[in-house]
């Protein structure tokens, strides 16, 4: 273990760290928005669209991100759609994430007592009003822990971007190991970098779970 090796690699790792954070943030944000839209479509059983969304969800949840990325990055150009590695990464993680987030939101919605929806209908609320005044305010809080757990999962999944050569953390470590063979130093830096991102997130998740539990059950 050499301090000098670590110091020299630090600028590269810092760059990769920032890129990992950026890609994670964009991915999680897009996945949450898209996932909420899908969950609402499925919750309100919009004809056709809800079946399409269900199929999309099953397809993406039951296949690895790696093969989804390969399909986007290497497969799509042969039918004339060429995307940069980073664009593929963002599209891939957002779609995969949306499929997972939709599940999280639907789980939250399913906790809303049926009487709430029935009352809203009896009051003559339109579907949009029901979404705004009943489903979202009661469903979102319940979804928070599952959404946060998915966010952590998605941050970890960004490590797979290395297969299409996006210079994020894992890719940087692999490159450096390939060039200089200092495995101990680079692996340590890699683990530490992920720990810096993920430990606070996971602590936050635990606190959120406790908070929502208290909010819902009062204990």
């Amino acid at each position, binding site marked *: 273990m050499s301090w000098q090796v670590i110091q020299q690699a630090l600028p590269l790792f810092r760059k990769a760290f920032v890129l990992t954070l950026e890609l994670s943030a964009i991915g999680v944000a897009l996945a949450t928005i898209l996932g909420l839209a899908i969950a609402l479509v499925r919750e309100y059983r919009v004809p056709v669209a809800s079946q399409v969304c269900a199929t999309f969800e099953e397809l993406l949840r039951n296949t690895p991100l790696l093969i989804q990325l390969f399909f986007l990055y290497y497969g799509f150009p*042969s039918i004339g759609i060429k995307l940069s590695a980073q664009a593929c990464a963002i599209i891939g993680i957002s779609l995969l994430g949306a499929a997972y987030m939709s599940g999280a939101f639907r789980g939250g919605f399913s906790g809303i007592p049926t009487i709430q929806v029935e009352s809203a209908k009896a009051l003559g609320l339109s579907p949009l009003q029901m979404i705004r005044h009943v489903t979202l305010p009661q469903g979102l809080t319940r979804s928070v822990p599952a959404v946060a757990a998915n966010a952590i999962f998605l941050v970890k999944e960004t490590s797979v971007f290395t297969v299409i050569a996006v210079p994020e953390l894992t890719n940087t470590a692999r490159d450096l190991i390939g060039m200089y063979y200092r495995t101990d130093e680079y692996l340590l830096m890699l683990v530490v970098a*992920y720990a810096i991102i993920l430990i606070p997130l996971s602590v936050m998740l635990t606190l959120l779970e406790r908070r929502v539990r208290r909010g819902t059950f009062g204990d």
Partner: protein
Amino acid sequence: MVLSAIDSASTVLAADAGWTILFTGDNLTRLLGGLWTSVSIAGLALVFGIPLGVVLGALRILRNPVLRAVLRLYLEFFRIIPTLVILFLFYYILPREMGVQVDGETIAVVAFGLWVAAEISDVVRGALISVPEHQIDAGKALGMNGLQLLWYVRLPQSINLMVPATINLAARVIMTTSLLLLISVIDVITVGQQIMEANRMAHPDSAFWVYGFVFLLYFIVCWPLAMIARALEKRAKERNNG
């Protein structure tokens, strides 16, 4: 000859040019063989990981603070570090520490096995503590010792919660085997890449079809598992609510 004539004819009909390579020669058998490699690695990891995880999970309900902290740390390590990074850690460190050559398959089984054990330990712990406290008290009143309580009271009443979670984990492990090409295991994706490489000239558009097909293969394996888990989950929920 005839084949190449058919080939050139089909490249003209660009729409169906690529998919034919999936079925030429023994390509399909090779792809399925690669899939078998992936699935059997996942299977072995589960075979080793599940019993270990059950033991660790049972230990985690004991009130020994040191044991609890150590096991919790073990779980959190596997939860926080991406699986790909864990795979690399084992790939680079294990052979050196043991002083022998270890192939990618073995490394994958060890790394995935320990990961499975960590996840299962949390599933088992969660299920075991979901058994109502009065059941435990009743068992104690009958004079049962700790192991008897576990075997006759806690396990039978919580196993229906453990099974669906374990099946879901199995599907996740199978999907994660897709990472094995990064530690030079010849899995289904590597076989696909070899096929594309061999047909680069005749079928430049083969990537779409080969990767699409591998995507489908993973789906065919994992989707039924997800469906079974969901059905069992629903049944467990209904039964537990009376």
